[in-house]
């Protein structure tokens, strides 16, 4: 019996969160040989996200103030590490990600063919493909990241991903803060972790607002590319 932790970072998602948790629970109940726990990390919401999540029976972590997506997800990794979970899945609290893909994300982990699995919306090009401006940014990450780690990753910004125990242990210690997704790929990739992608279908967000506003996309690109560059020159402990 493998234990799976589903980490859902949530900031002011009171309108969706219960629905998202219930859909995740429904999807994970059908998994064979897996006991799943749903964890909502309430990132200092100002609405009643925490109460809404509690009614579903999910474990809720209440951060005392807003840390941003990176700090919230890392808190989930620390929980997974401390409670000795075998696998962790990260899924957005806004309903963009379809929990019925969870079994596809974890199967490479169970087979031992990957340490991290990213749900990519670009492999089969189905569903919501993001705005054209964002697609350009995502394409830049595809070139840069693939060149650095030598593994082709098409959807570096996807927040729908699965990790095994070794990846959890590393990310509980060091997970990027501000816009963590592309950087986390580098952190794991440079240490020789095997990363693979599986096609998923994403929807447009159902509520709430993106952590990346349209005005700050240039700042976002600059910040993340700098962080990726710094990562390349950091001392890495190969696994």
């Amino acid at each position: 019996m493998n234990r799976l932790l589903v980490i859902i970072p949530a900031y002011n998602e009171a309108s969706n969160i219960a629905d998202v948790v219930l859909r995740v629970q429904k999807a994970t109940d059908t998994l064979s040989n897996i006991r799943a726990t749903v964890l909502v990390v309430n990132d200092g919401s100002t609405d009643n996200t925490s109460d809404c999540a509690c009614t579903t029976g999910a474990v809720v972590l209440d951060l005392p103030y807003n840390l941003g997506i990176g700090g919230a997800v890392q808190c989930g990794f620390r929980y997974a590490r401390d409670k000795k979970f075998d696998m962790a899945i990260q899924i957005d609290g806004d309903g963009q990600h379809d929990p019925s893909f969870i079994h596809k994300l974890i199967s490479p982990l169970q087979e031992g063919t990957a340490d991290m699995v990213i749900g990519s919306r670009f492999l089969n090009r189905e569903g919501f493909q993001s705005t054209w401006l964002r697609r350009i940014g995502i394409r830049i990450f595809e070139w840069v990241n693939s060149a650095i780690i030598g593994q082709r990753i098409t959807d570096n910004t996807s927040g729908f991903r699965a990790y095994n125990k070794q990846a959890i242990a590393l990310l509980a210690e060091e997970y990027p803060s501000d816009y963590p997704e592309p950087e986390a790929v580098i952190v794991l990739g440079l240490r020789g972790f095997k990363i693979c992608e599986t096609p998923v279908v994403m929807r447009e967000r159902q509520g709430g607002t993106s952590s990346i506003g349209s005005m700050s996309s240039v700042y976002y690109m600059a910040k993340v590319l700098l962080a990726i560059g710094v990562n390349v020159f950091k001392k890495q402990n190969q696994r």
Partner: protein
Amino acid sequence: MPELNTGVEIFRIQIIAVVGSLFIIGFIIELIRRKKLQERYALLWLVAGIVMIVLSIWRNGLDKLAHLLGVGYAPALLFLVALGFGLLMMIHFSVVISSLTERNKILAQEVALLKAELNKINDEFKKRSVN
């Protein structure tokens, strides 16, 4: 006349620099005394103040140093040194803020984890006392 004039100006800037530096040193020491500033963060300020005083009073040394660095107007070197210290201070603070932010994040995460653990224990305790 112009020579006398520049002489007076330099004298004046010396006084201003000494008084300013003394004021900053006094202010920093007062802040430490009131426990509003930790010694480790005051050190750079005090060093800056002392260097400024030494350079202000010791005119000959300032002139020599200015000549060595190719600064034509010696008192301008005072501003350069002060600016350099200001820059150093800001970098120092950026480093301090970064490390505080990181520790703050870990602390918040620990609080959330402990709170969840405490809630769980409380619930179990309640259940047991009901039975």
